[in-house]
């Protein structure tokens, strides 16, 4: 059974149909790509999947459960992690603190009375957090204020913040935007390692097709809110209609 199954997803903004009966599915541990020109509705689809936007019609099932009426935080607790196209970091906190707060929320450590009677201990190194910081290459900058980090490090912090919660699915929204070639390649290596572990499924929105090819196995193509094509990466990217949508009419 599919981990995530979204059917007939429709979202309108006033007179604009941003998503029109879109279908996507992700198997457990699978890496899926989502491509399409700017304004195709990729980020809106992510917003609908994790609850930032409400659907006009359609159904989202996650791990066998209907989730399209749940608020964002409950979907997160069920195991949907996410990164953002425009970085959403916690101002004034370090990279380590980003991961720590996510880890604590994940453990359900957020009760007020626990803080008051001192059950939640102060900043002690958490093995899971330290491992992830090392794996993402963030050790050196772990204690710097987040505002002083580069865009590339910021993207890694967002990824780490999602992964520290051991999500079943992580939605990655254009992780390569704002990164240079070297940083993109490094980010790709991290994603490939994540895919090969097969514990976390991922859905990748990305314009860098090399990155998409190297990470995902299956791909969905969106254009003007409609699903244009889906299937194995190489087949779909060779498809005539997809090439036209993406690269323009070459003739």
């Amino acid at each position, binding site marked *: 059974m599919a981990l995530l199954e979204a059917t007939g997803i429709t979202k309108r903004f006033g007179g604009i149909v941003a998503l029109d009966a879109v279908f996507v599915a992700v198997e457990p541990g699978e890496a899926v790509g989502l491509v399409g020109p700017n304004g195709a509705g990729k980020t809106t689809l992510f917003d609908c999947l*994790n609850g*930032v936007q409400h659907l006009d019609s359609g159904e989202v099932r996650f791990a066998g459960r209907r989730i399209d009426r749940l*608020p*964002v*935080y*409950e979907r*997160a*607790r069920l195991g949907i*992690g*996410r990164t*953002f196209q425009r970085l*959403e*970091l*916690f*101002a*004034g*906190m370090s990279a380590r*603190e980003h991961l*720590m*707060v*996510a880890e*604590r*929320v*994940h453990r359900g*450590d*957020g*009760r*007020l009375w*626990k*803080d*008051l009677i*001192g059950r*939640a201990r*102060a900043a002690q190194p958490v093995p899971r957090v330290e491992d992830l910081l090392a794996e993402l290459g963030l050790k050196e900058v772990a204690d710097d*204020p*987040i*505002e*002083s980090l580069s865009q590339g490090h910021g993207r890694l912090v*967002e990824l780490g*913040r*999602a992964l520290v*919660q051991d999500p079943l699915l992580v939605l990655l929204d254009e992780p390569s935007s704002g990164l240079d070639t070297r940083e993109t390649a490094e980010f790709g290596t991290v994603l490939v390692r994540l895919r090969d572990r097969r514990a976390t499924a991922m859905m990748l929105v990305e314009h860098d097709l090399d990155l998409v090819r190297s990470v995902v196995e299956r791909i969905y193509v969106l254009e003007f809110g409609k699903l244009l094509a889906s299937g194995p990466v190489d087949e779909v990217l060779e498809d005539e209609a997809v090439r036209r949508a993406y690269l323009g009419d070459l003739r």
Partner: protein
Amino acid sequence: MTEFLSYAIPGLPYGCVFALMAVGLVLTYQTSGVFNLAYGAQAYASALVFYVCVNAGWPNWAAFVVAVVLVAPLLGLAMDRFLYRFIRSARVLVKLVSALGMLIAIPSALALIFGNQQRLAPPALWLPPGSVYFHLAGDAINGTELSTVIVTLAVVLGASLMSHFTQIGLRMRAMAESPRMVQLAGINSERVGIAIWVLSSFLAGLAGVLLAPLFADLQALDFTDLLVAAIAAAALGSLTSLPLAFWGGIGLGVVQELLGGYLPSGTVLSSGLRPALPFVVLLGLLLALPGLRERWFHDDPLSRCDPPPPPMATTIGGYGFKGALRVARWAVLFAFFVSCLTWVPGNWTFTLTQGLAFSIVFLSIVFLTGMSGQISLCQASFAGIGAFTCGQLAGHFGVSVLVGILAGGALAALVGVVVALPALRLGGLALALATLAFGLLADNVGFQFSWSGNGDSGVNIPRPEVGSLSFASGKAFFVLACVLLAACSAVVLAIRRGTTGRELAAMRGSELAAASIGTNLAKLKITVFAVAAALAGIGGALYGSLQGTVAPDDFNSLLSLVFMVVVVTTGVYTVEGAIQAGMAYVVLYQLLDYLPSQWSNLFPILFGLGAVTYALHPEGIVEWQKRRAIEIVADWGKHPETVG
């Protein structure tokens, strides 16, 4: 029908004044993005200058020229050029606090210049108030009412002619639609912006001079209420439409008088609801109009870019240095404690105990604004709820005062939950205005009943007694205040260190990302408002018990604004900041008491100007200076020979 008209017509002059203010407010907000909360103070400034000039024997027209044509635009222009211009793309809190600082500083500066004696019977602008010109639906129309309506109509006519038939008018209209497009069209938007500030300030001055004779005497507080009425009227036009804002103002004035006519007279409902109408309307609009919320949320894309705050003073230096600092801090605290119990004279112990009570109230602002990024402009009202609950329980039910203080905190927390409900949907400016409206509502209605604040006579709160242990003496009460403050600080520190504190910091950083890692923002915000209200309530009850008697005026909504300004000036991010604010607040007040009475106005001026520096030093002036001092000492520790 005649009865209806006879009630409605006296509302027109008020409506005209509201309308002028609302239009001016929308003009500057639309074009500069700064919500000018000091607008009421500008109106007051012109009214005061007009009063002073007329009383000095000037003819009315000369006084009008000086007060409305010269002083008002100059004041507005000065504020724009020296302050608002620099913070257009700043965060909402920065803009808000700067404007609040001006709102508080301007009336005090005026009192310092012109003296703060009572000013009875403000002069009318044009037609004499005594003479009746004609009767309309049974209402005698006097000179004040007639001239207000005529002048307003003339100004509105003139302004709309100008906006439709002159070059600068066209540009101003374009600017009000979209400042960015005006810039792209190659127009010097700065110059148009200046023209708009001049026009808007002129309207404020005119409104102030027109409004003044409707009151028995000239008071700055009346103009703050005028400001809220204007905000409500502007909100009727979604803060964007000038005509809607204008008619909203007229309507508000008329409805207010209708309520006064139809509601049974002599009850709290009629004496309270009539002045409270603008706040109720504002609160309702904020909650009901989704357009208003959206607009205020996505105010300015730049407003979210925030440079990282500098490190706190406590985090500087190596471990040995930190240890030494900690020892020094405890030594200071210990010396303070022992001094107050031994050689400090009684009246100063009293003052410092007041400071401890205020520190608890200020702790609520640190928790709410500094730690959680929420804005509340009604913390004094929560303090009032705490104090009155404590007093009423002790007076009527013989409840022990210590229990009463805690009960006061608990009830304030309950009310805090109710206030938090709009906070779930609103943010930034909308939330600030909603809490301001709530505070004014508490002032004008909530605290006026005999079972709550008991109006002007106030509520008695005895000093606590536990068995044979009495806290009636000044020193015993001081110890109690120290213990309560320590307990409250410990609670805040524990929350900050724990998971909830981390989640609060995350929410302050990015609500979207906080939700996407599984934080329940609704629950978190309700918790924050409840805890903050409880802290304010406990502080207020303690203050009340210290004073013996407290009246609603001790917790008026203007005080909420002052509290906010004081805390952000001294330091809004740390518990230490709250205690510094509490101490600075009372000590400065006491010191100014030794000077001639006029100089007590220095106090709001100092903090008002202090708030303006918030844009540069969000960590607070005291925190900033402390950090500098510690850095110098730390440097000296490293290289003793280079500092001589």
